[in-house]
């Protein structure tokens, strides 16, 4: 799968594969729309992309469920998917590639060697670090080992999914495998996190496309996510926002509010604290997204979403550390316990105060009588 330099430009490849200029402009314009770029930028993007060379991509899967890849393969229509593979050169993906075993590993080694310092590393899944990384091994090597090895020659790393971005579900309490995010392990390479469980297909392809178009890592937020997709919270772009502002909330999944499409905040929607493109790009080619289907946002694109309390309790719901949410009885118990402890200490402080004031008053005797003597 690897090619020898000089690689043809993407434009040449497109021509060779019979993809028309208009089809490509159309694709780029659609992408620009997804990226929320000005509509006319699609043409410029098409020109830039045609002139660019395909980067070699190595796709590593670690502690993951393959949901991200499932999502990715549902990006747009198959023709566009083929377009995607015209834009990048996917030199290693142990799930998708035909080769297996020794052959596959050799392909990776070859691609790494040929494109050292230039290839794009895509990582899917968290990296277990417990017990020396024994929880995830391929070809006799731990994920940790493979990652550090592959990262060395990478131009940049794209973490696909919440697991590789933030640790995800494997990282969730009690994290038996010592799972870590890629950014916790690799600190000397540009990293782009495309979080989500899974990420929206168009967000993955869009990020890769953006990287190829720009030739560098795009603008990122504090969690290293591309701001074009992760710049707004679900809540900010949610079509149910007017209900939130008016204070109209569904209180249960089968009440009048839920049927009327009111805000799901009180049913635990994490939209306000979740940054992703679900409300704008939507899913399955723009058909819908969870809130539109009547379910609160789970906040899957955010770090620690699995440990953030029940999916069905509102954002400000108090949580007592790792133990879970506070129940009224538990809160009352805790309050009473604290109050009793406080009362005991208070009683103690009164004893101290009594001793202190008695001490200050001196021996019990009329002060004036002393003075008179």
């Amino acid at each position, binding site marked *: 799968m690897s090619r020898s330099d000089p690689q043809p430009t993407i434009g040449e490849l497109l021509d060779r594969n019979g993809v028309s200029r208009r089809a490509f402009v159309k694709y780029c314009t659609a992408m620009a729309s997804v990226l929320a770029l000005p509509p006319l930028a699609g043409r410029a993007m098409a020109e830039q992309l045609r002139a660019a060379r395909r980067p070699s991509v190595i796709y590593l899967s670690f502690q993951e469920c393959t949901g991200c890849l499932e999502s990715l393969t549902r990006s747009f229509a198959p023709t566009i998917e083929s377009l995607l593979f015209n834009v990048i050169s996917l030199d290693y993906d142990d799930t998708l590639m035909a080769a297996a075993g020794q052959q596959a590993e050799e392909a990776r080694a070859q691609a790494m060697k040929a494109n050292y310092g230039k290839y794009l590393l895509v990582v899917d899944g968290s990296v277990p670090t417990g017990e020396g990384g024994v929880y995830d091994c391929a070809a006799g090597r731990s994920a940790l080992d493979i990652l550090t090895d592959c990262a060395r020659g990478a131009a940049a790393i794209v973490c696909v999914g919440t697991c590789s971005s933030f640790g995800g579900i494997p990282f969730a309490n009690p994290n038996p495998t010592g799972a870590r995010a890629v950014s916790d392990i690799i600190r000397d390479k540009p990293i782009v996190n495309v979080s989500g469980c899974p990420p929206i297909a168009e967000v993955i392809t869009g990020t890769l496309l953006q990287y190829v178009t720009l030739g560098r890592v795009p603008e990122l937020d504090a969690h290293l996510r591309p701001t074009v997709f992760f710049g707004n919270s679900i809540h900010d772009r949610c079509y149910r926002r007017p209900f939130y502002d008016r204070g109209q909330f569904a209180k249960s999944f089968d009440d009048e509010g839920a049927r009327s499409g009111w805000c799901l905040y009180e049913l635990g929607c994490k939209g306000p604290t979740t940054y992703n493109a679900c409300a704008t790009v939507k899913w399955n080619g723009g058909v819908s997204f969870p809130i539109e289907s009547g379910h609160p946002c789970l906040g899957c694109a955010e770090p620690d979403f699995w440990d953030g309390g029940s999916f069905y309790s509102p954002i400000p719901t108090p949580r007592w550390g790792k133990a879970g949410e506070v129940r009224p009885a538990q809160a009352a118990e805790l309050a009473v316990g604290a109050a009793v402890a406080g009362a005991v200490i208070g009683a103690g402080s009164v004893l101290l*105060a009594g001793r*202190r004031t*008695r001490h*200050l008053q001196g021996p019990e005797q*009329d002060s*004036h009588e002393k003075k008179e003597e």
Partner: protein
Amino acid sequence: MSTPAAELRASLAPEESAMESEQRLAGAMRGFAREVGALSALRLESCIHCGICAEACHFYVATEDPKYTPILKVEPFKQVFKREASAFAPIYRWLGLKRDISVAELEEWQHLLYESCNMCGRCSLICPMGIDVAALIEQARRGMFEAGLAPKELYEKAARQQRTGQPEETAEPYREKLLAIGRQFGVSIPLDAPQADVMLTVSRTDIEQYPKAVASLARVMAHLEVPCTFRSDGLIAENYGYYAGARDWQRDISRRLIDQAIACQAKVLIVPECGHAYSVLRWQAAELYGAPLPFEVRHITEYIAEALDGGRLKLRPADAGATAFHDPCMLVRKSGVMEAPRKIMRALGIVPNEMTHHVGFDYCCGGGGGVVDIERAAKLRYRAMENKLREIDDTMARTFLTSCSDCRRTFDDAKRHFDWEKTPQSLLELVADHLQEQAR
């Protein structure tokens, strides 16, 4: 010009100025510590520093000087409470978060607690938290007394009264003066009866300055034909221990009266026209005495009003013209004697022109709390009472009545100082002058 330190020394009694700094501090701590209790703690803890009490205080209203804010006057007490007895006191001491009070502070507060507070209780009525600020000030004075910082006028009077029963040394003992007043006004003075239903007391101010008021008391009581008596060993109603902040002396002074009342098996002890004497005996004596008093304490206006109610007394209408009445703070705000004087005035056919602030909300005469006795306080006192005089003038009254000899003395003093045209008169005297002989 003398230095403040010298001025302070001059304001103190010799025993007090002899005290060393450590003695002062220890004394203050002792005094404050003794006053710490659930009630004072709640009051001290509740303050939110809203500053509203300043607006109730005539010293602040007159000067607009923030140091006269009532709650600020108890600051040393508050500081000692927080540092020694509040919930976090051990932590405050451990971390040094609350300073110890200093002698300099105590000395500064002498002026605030004694010279610029009449303990009139107006601040207690305005506090949105409901704090009885005046009660705290009484307690704070007790600490100041222990620190040897009570002004000499109050200290010496209190000391003498505790020792001898008389706040001042007089050429002729008050007992003799009392009998002389009887002779002068031609009323019989019942004295030292072994048994009487009613024990009478007399105000030192009346004996010295307003003998007619004393005679009027005897005359009214004689008219009512109730077995009553003065007692030589419990004659003076005032309590300078209270003013000075001398808790133990206050108790001893009260006990003198209590013992005499018990000795003559009195059912009622009558306090003459004196506000603080009534308030002290009525509300504080039992606690200091350690038991409920076996007799009732009544102010003479209350007693007369009761007699009017019972039909035992009838009064002739008084030709008083437009009349204003000054409610003594110690009687209304501190003691709830609200209706009695008005009932009496009605019986005399007087409808008073009320001042802007009246009954429970009236301004103090400026002399209460012993302030009228303190020489150093005079200048500020005059300033504070100007507003009161204006309010009285605004009533356009010809006759100006009150029912407290200390208030009367203060207004008389103002008459001299300001060349004020009104003369404060005693309600009791007016009653005595208008007794209606009943057909028997």
